[in-house]
């Protein structure tokens, strides 16, 4: 069996998931990556996308809107601002995300305009991907 690593998914309001996972697919800001046990220590930001954690028995998928990921060899902590299990997500949730990104992009100051636009584009791709 593959080596396992501790996977924690937390949002400001609660701990969403905490279990041993064999691999975790993360929508990193600079591209998706998969973390497995003994991954190099890494801190990265996330773009809106799908987070997939595979444990011994099954796979859990979450929709995240951004946040941070801290990977060390033994554990991965995902600090998400909003994280919703894929099965529970509704049309309204997605619409709210798109609206929030849209608003951020419209009101963005010139320095962060690029980031906000990128976030909006990523959110729209995510909305299409979920195809609700």
């Amino acid at each position, binding site marked *: 069996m593959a080596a396992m690593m501790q996977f924690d998914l937390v949002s400001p*309001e609660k701990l969403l998931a905490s279990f041993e996972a064999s691999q975790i697919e993360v929508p990193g800001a600079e591209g998706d990556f998969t973390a497995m046990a003994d991954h*190099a220590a890494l801190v*990265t930001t996330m773009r809106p996308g799908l987070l997939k954690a595979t444990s011994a028995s099954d796979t859990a998928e979450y929709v995240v809107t951004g946040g941070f990921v801290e990977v060390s060899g033994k554990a991965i902590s995902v600090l998400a601002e909003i994280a919703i299990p894929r099965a529970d997500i509704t049309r309204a949730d997605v619409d709210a995300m798109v609206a929030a990104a849209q608003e951020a992009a419209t009101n963005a100051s010139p320095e962060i305009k690029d980031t906000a636009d990128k976030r909006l584009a990523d959110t729209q791709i995510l909305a299409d991907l979920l195809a609700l």
Partner: protein
Amino acid sequence: MANLKDLKTRIQSVKNTRKITKAMQMVAAAKLRRAQEAAEAGRPYADRMAEVMRNLAHAAAGADDAPVLLAGNGKDDVHLLIVATSERGLCGGFNSSIVRRARAHAQRLVANGKTVKMLTVGKKGREQLRREYEQDMVAHVDLTEVKRVGYVNAQGIAKDVLARFAAGEFDVATIFFSTFQSVMAQEPTTLQLIPATVEEDPEKEAPFYEFEPDEEEILAELLPAAMTTQIFTALLENGASEQGARMSAMDSATRNAGDMIDRLTIEYNRSRQAAITNELIEIISGAEAL
């Protein structure tokens, strides 16, 4: 000696007060449990955020181009005090102890020739501070309509504070709130938000991290998020402290009402007895006179 009817009304009214304080105590107990759960649920995120911050800040603190949120803007003239209190009273010394701490801090700053600005969260603190610092109040956040403090509330406050900081309205931001220790004890706490305070943990060796994108970009996103988290934690701690304080205040109020009823009842019985004795004496002396 007070007349019997007056005493009876008094006893009844104290009994009614006791019913109210007892009910409030029970409501506070139920709310406290919920507030504590919320505070506990928020802890993992706050802890991890603090840890990531620690790792990153360690690397960036020495650099010349360290972000202003971490290193400050080099000045120390205008201080923003964020005073977080409750929206409702009847919670013992909860609000006063936070306000007292904030006021002492403000007086110290003013004595050192600094300018003080205030942002209040919760109307009780605002009411207490308005007398002295009316002209220094820059904003007020009203959470009266908020049943359950959410991350969005903290985000709203953080956004406002960051916008003011970016506009150069202040140099240092400090938040005042109460940390929940137990139902009996709530500790008024001062926490500096800008420049960010990073707890050092010499025991723990920070692993050597790779950063993606680079450190500065992550820090630029992380610092506001970390500040929001600190505000959120403060609000949650405050929520639990408020209910704890109210619970113990209402508990002692209920007990005091009980004591008062006992005292009044004794007085009532004595007066009644005295009245009866009096009447008997009158009857007897009347009979003897015949």
